[in-house]
């Protein structure tokens, strides 16, 4: 990121949103510079969508301020909104319109210069692979294509900040790969905020990550930090003549052992300094357990969530 322009395109500080006494989002801060992709990660109901709605002006924050390219979203919403492209959880498409009609409407709503209108539409369609679908009714398109129309809608006015709420939900694996590479491409000259509950997705495309839980930020680091956090936590070992769980526990003190399936154990709760790999191999040879596979498993999303949320936050 060091070689990228560091001018902030979006800065949100101390965002809090309350519904009555229920706090949906509490003290979330985001800072985004040009060419950066931030992933908002969290289980359902963590406050990802609420945060995004606040940043896009769909919901007024109870506390906190939002600045888009230095323009205050609350004081000057009309100017600030020209710099934001937003794809909500459900793509906001009018099913009775054709793709072309819809994109033209969106471009006009976002005040795209009428001279640039056609080229802006063409670029947006090309980037999202919709060129062939120009004349189709949106209602007749599949979920994946409707999602693309939603993305096209968010980028047609070349906004500085693109905000995508779960952009890959409901897509098939091929489409997911396409959309991910599209987001990476967008990240080169826009700032992107992405929400998801899929951890590998964040690792694949984001530069940094914030994990939300119950409306609070529980993890805020760049992607390297997340990898470090996840790895070295557990090992998965497969045996041909597996020992009993008890036997394994006797040999490997202060490790947590769980049976994954017949002959496969997951050894977790380890610290980096006492790496048990050597010990496992040694014991296996001595006791003829027939070790044939030893994988350094990464912590799953659930484990990361559990670990982060059981820490004293």
């Amino acid at each position, binding site marked *: 990121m060091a070689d990228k322009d560091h001018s902030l395109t979006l800065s949100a500080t101390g965002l809090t949103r309350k519904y009555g006494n229920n706090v949906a989002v509490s003290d979330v801060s985001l800072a985004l510079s040009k060419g950066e992709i931030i992933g908002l990660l969290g289980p359902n109901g963590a406050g990802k969508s609420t945060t995004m*709605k606040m940043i*896009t*002006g*769909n*919901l*007024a924050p109870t506390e906190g301020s939002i600045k888009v390219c230095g323009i205050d979203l609350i004081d000057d*919403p*009309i*100017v600030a*909104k*020209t710099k*934001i492209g*937003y794809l*909500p*959880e*459900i793509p*906001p*498409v*009018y*099913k*009775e*319109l054709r793709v072309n*009609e819809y994109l033209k*409407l*969106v471009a*006009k*709503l*976002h*005040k795209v210069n009428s001279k640039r209108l056609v080229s802006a539409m063409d670029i947006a369609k090309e980037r999202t692979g919709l060129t062939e679908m120009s004349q189709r009714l949106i209602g007749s398109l599949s979920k994946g294509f409707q999602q693309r129309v939603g993305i096209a*809608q968010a980028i047609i006015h070349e906004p500085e900040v693109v905000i995508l709420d779960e952009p890959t939900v409901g897509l098939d694996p091929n489409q997911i790969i396409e959309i991910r590479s599209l987001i990476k491409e967008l990240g080169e000259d826009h700032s992107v905020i992405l929400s998801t509950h899929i951890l590998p997705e964040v690792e694949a495309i984001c530069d940094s990550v914030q994990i939300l839980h119950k409306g609070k930020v529980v993890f805020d680091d760049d992607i390297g930090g997340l990898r470090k956090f996840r790895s070295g936590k557990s090992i998965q070992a497969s045996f041909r003549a597996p020992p009993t769980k008890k036997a394994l526990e006797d040999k490997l003190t202060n490790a947590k052992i769980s049976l994954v399936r017949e002959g496969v154990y997951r050894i977790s709760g380890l610290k980096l300094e006492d790496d048990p790999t050597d010990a496992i191999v040694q014991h296996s040879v001595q006791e003829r357990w027939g070790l044939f596979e030893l994988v350094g498993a990464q912590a799953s999303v659930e484990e990361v969530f559990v670990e982060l949320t059981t820490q004293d936050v």
Partner: protein
Amino acid sequence: MIIVIALKELRSMFASPLAWVVLAFVQGFLANVFLKQVDTFMIIQAQLARTPNAPGLTELAIVPMFGAAQMVLLMSIPLLTMRLISEEKRNQTMALLVSAPVSMTQIIVGKFTAMVAFLCLILALIATMSFSLLAGGAIDLGLIAANLLGLLLLGMAFSSIGIFISCLTVHPVVAAVMTLAVFMGFWVIGLAASDPGSWLNWVSISKRFEGFLDGYVSLPDVTFFVVVIALFIFLSIRKLDSERLSA
């Protein structure tokens, strides 16, 4: 920006069969009333010729049609306004408008403009029918103008009320039923206000409209309609704004 939203709304209206059905219903019903009135006029024409100061063709054939048009608008406007806001909320497309650099005022006024355009279409159909009588006789153009203005104001007032009610719910059908109930309420007030001195006259939309039917364009009546229109547009804007703040 208002025009962009209004054009989109008209496009959506005519993309569904609803707008066409409403137009067909309005035209079919009013044409029936109109022909019936013209027919009656033909029958009693001889008698009228002998009566001094008798009502003319306009009063006997055209004005009753405008009177019937009031009921037609009362029934069809809820169907047209029901989806304007509620459907945007239901399909989550409201986020598109709210995230765009467009103010709430522009959204509501844009939708209202689309309704006015649709009303003008209905008025054009009615005016065409009225003017067709020019082929066979003289009609009172001033009276027709007053009637058209009255019907337009009535339709605009109904539309703004309908849009406001559409802001209150996410179910178009609920909005339609509520709007119809409110209009019926106004109509009942009109019926109850038989005593010309009663305050009910003052708030009755239909009594206000009757003035226009008689050809009186009075400032209080026009002001009444303008205030109703402005009030409900303002309330709609406030409702959408408050959703952003509290919902």
